């Protein structure tokens, strides 16, 4: 319990830090939300009135305290441009981001672990070399480049997949589910490609190490089948660093989702962030960052707890 409590306290502190940095960072951006909607017909008096309407005429410290007070009441504020609560803006978008990042994470793990095992068990063979080279290359890819490449190849040239959106207008029932999956493939594949290398290479290295341990030699000496040695004995220990990677990679995944959603016009939180930056819609930006920071903190917390369960030594250290 103490272990979880400490991790939770650390998570909350991280969240407060993220909220504070975001609050001041968006206000460091050049211009203000009124200049972002600058209209030739605007007068200086009208501009000052708009700033006051947005609460931006108050001193920065007062704005910050107001915002923290709002947050403690679970209120993320009102969007400057849309005149609706930020919670409504984000809740409309969140399911799509969860579908995209969730699918990307599951596919990455489902592919990454077996490929890592395959490389480790064929260490220094040609299969291992191909997997290693592909993994390193994939790790060095940049999400927008991958996204645009896949869009041209599979969307425009081969016309296998739609190049934007999340679901067809006319699709209903099961067809809507299929349409959703159809639209999900390209953005999901883009995220999987940039993440997969990290999982595969980590899995490979840690499994090779684990396979060299005494308990593995003992199991082999006892006549345990090679498959059982790998999957039942060595893999459990080799999974520990991979679990850490899954938690850490969530941040990268979220960053990648912002870019991927923008490229494929996928209607998630990432695209909302992209739009809000251009409009300097501070409340939406702050709300989105708080939400994503909370997601990353929560994922790290879960990772820590999972690590504690997988390796009890962590709990007592």
């Amino acid at each position, binding site marked *: 319990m103490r272990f979880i409590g400490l991790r939770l306290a650390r998570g909350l502190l991280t969240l407060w830090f993220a909220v504070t940095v975001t609050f001041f960072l968006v206000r460091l951006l050049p211009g203000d939300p009124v200049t972002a909607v600058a209209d030739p017909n605007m007068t200086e008096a009208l501009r000052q009135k708009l700033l006051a309407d947005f609460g931006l005429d108050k001193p920065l410290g007062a704005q910050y305290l107001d915002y923290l007070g709002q947050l403690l009441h679970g209120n993320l504020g009102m969007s400057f441009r849309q005149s609706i609560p930020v919670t409504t803006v984000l809740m409309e978008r969140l399911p799509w981001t969860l579908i995209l990042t969730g699918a990307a994470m599951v596919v990455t793990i489902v592919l990454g672990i077996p490929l890592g095992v395959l490389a480790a068990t064929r260490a220094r063979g040609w299969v291992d070399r191909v997997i290693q080279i592909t993994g390193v290359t994939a790790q060095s890819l940049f999400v927008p480049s991958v996204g645009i490449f896949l869009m041209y190849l599979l969307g*425009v040239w081969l016309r296998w997949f739609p190049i934007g959106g999340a679901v067809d207008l006319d699709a209903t029932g099961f067809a809507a589910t299929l349409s959703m999956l159809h639209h999900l493939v390209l953005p999901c594949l883009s995220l999987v490609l940039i993440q997969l290398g990290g999982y595969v290479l980590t899995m490979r290295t840690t499994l090779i190490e684990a396979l060299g341990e005494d308990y593995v030699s003992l199991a082999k000496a006892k006549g345990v089948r090679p498959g059982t040695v790998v999957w039942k004995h060595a893999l459990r220990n080799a999974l520990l660093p991979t679990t850490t990677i899954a938690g850490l990679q969530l941040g990268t995944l979220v960053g990648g989702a912002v870019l991927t959603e923008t490229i494929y016009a996928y209607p998630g939180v990432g695209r909302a962030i992209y739009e809000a930056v251009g409009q300097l819609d501070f409340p939406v930006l702050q709300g989105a960052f708080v939400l994503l920071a909370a997601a990353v903190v929560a994922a790290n917390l879960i990772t820590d707890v999972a690590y504690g369960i997988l390796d009890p030594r962590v709990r007592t250290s």
Partner: protein
Amino acid sequence: MRRGVLLAALAALTLSAACAPSVPGSSGSAGAQQPASSDRLTIGTTADVLNYNPLVGNSRTDSWVTNLMYPHLTQMDMSGKRVPYLATEWSYAEDGKSATVTLRDDMKWSDGKPVTADDVVFSVMTVKKENFGVVAGLITALDEAVAVSPTQVRFDLTRPDGTFLDNVGFWLPVVPKHVFEKAPSVQKFANDSNWVSAGPFKLTKVERGQRYVMERVDGFGPGAPAVKEVVFRVFPDVNTEVLALRNGEIDVIGNVLPPATAAELKNDPSVKLEQIPSLGWAHLQYNVKRKPLDDVRVRQALAHAVDYEAIRNIALKGYAKSSNSSVLTPSLPEWTDPSAKEYAFDPALSKQLLAQAGVSNLSLSMIYDQADPNIARWAPMVRDSAKQAGITIKLQGLERNTYVDKSLNHDFDIYAGSWAIMDNPPANLGLAFKTGGYINYGQVSDPELDALIDKAQKALSVEEAKPPIQEAARRIRDQVYDNVLYVETFNIAHSVKWTGFKPMPSELLSIVNPLSLAAAKPAG
């Protein structure tokens, strides 16, 4: 080990299975082969609707969608002249202290109530009282609006203002009083559901981040729409819209095409380009409060150091017209000054003017929006041609908000940019060149110019306003308060499967204006 390989194979199969589905009615390749039906017209846009309250929203997509829902008093023909829409007639009183507008009597809100003078009065007076939105800065002369009858509105003005009817007619969306008056603050009213509208199409479905579905309104006064449904679909940028148009996923690209893209699409047999004039112009403004730019000879030297023809032909691929260095552009032919003459590209004359001003080794910085594809192409050309006159121009491509901020705070030597819509010269020149004008970026302060613009604004007809405004434009040109480079010819792309559009000037109206979409129909 065998199990490991099996697992890997299974995982690969899972992924390929996820890739496999081919969905009925999918927005994939099939659309490119099928003929258009009048069931649906899909328009690509690059942004979501941010605000459904037309009195507040001012992004392109906001305007395109809400223009189909909330009528304006007038629309515009291709020469920029106002044409009837909700209003059938409009005029000023002889003393210019009031204006009267007569409305159609056959327009209805979607809940069956008629659109009346009360709605117009409510819309304009709400903007005045709450002081917000695009229109607020345009109605400073308004004292009171009165519904004389259900189809007649009288605007009482505090001073004669010949720009008032043009401005209110074009920019003011009329909203249903019986819906909007219930909001404690109309400015803060999101109007994001249960829309009561009066246009050729009504909004029926919103999938934020994806699309906006609008259904035909039968019995729409100004003309029954042929197409049953209009869908605005959101894309990340124009390039993706082009791919979607070629793939048959959309029928119209709402946004203006960059000239290079237009040149590429020109020969595509499946695409038709509609050319519409811009109501704005691209220009360079010099900060006249900074030395040595306060000397007109230096500004003239800079004006002679630009190769205008090369910019229009190379950077704009020929999709641009000369405005003869005048702020009265060919897009508004009834205002243009036939005596206007473009500054010649003459580096030798430039050098001579600088020598007369006693300026040597002139080095200036030029700000521009780096995301603007046109300016990003011609900014280096401005730098290179100036070099021939011995002038060094350092380019500062900036992120848009930084650029706007620097412009409004006059933090530049040279500002490179373009106005989007300058639809009424007396009103627009007031904002851009009168002392203290909101978009007077170059800090021009010239009492003689102010007086000319004031005189034009008070005139109640184009004939009366023309002499002072042309004189003002000549002064702006001669003093180089603005260096007009070109007026862009906008290219709007649509599938050849559609026809009947009624193009109007500017990206705001183009072929997605209400009268155009009501007239659009499948070709053949």
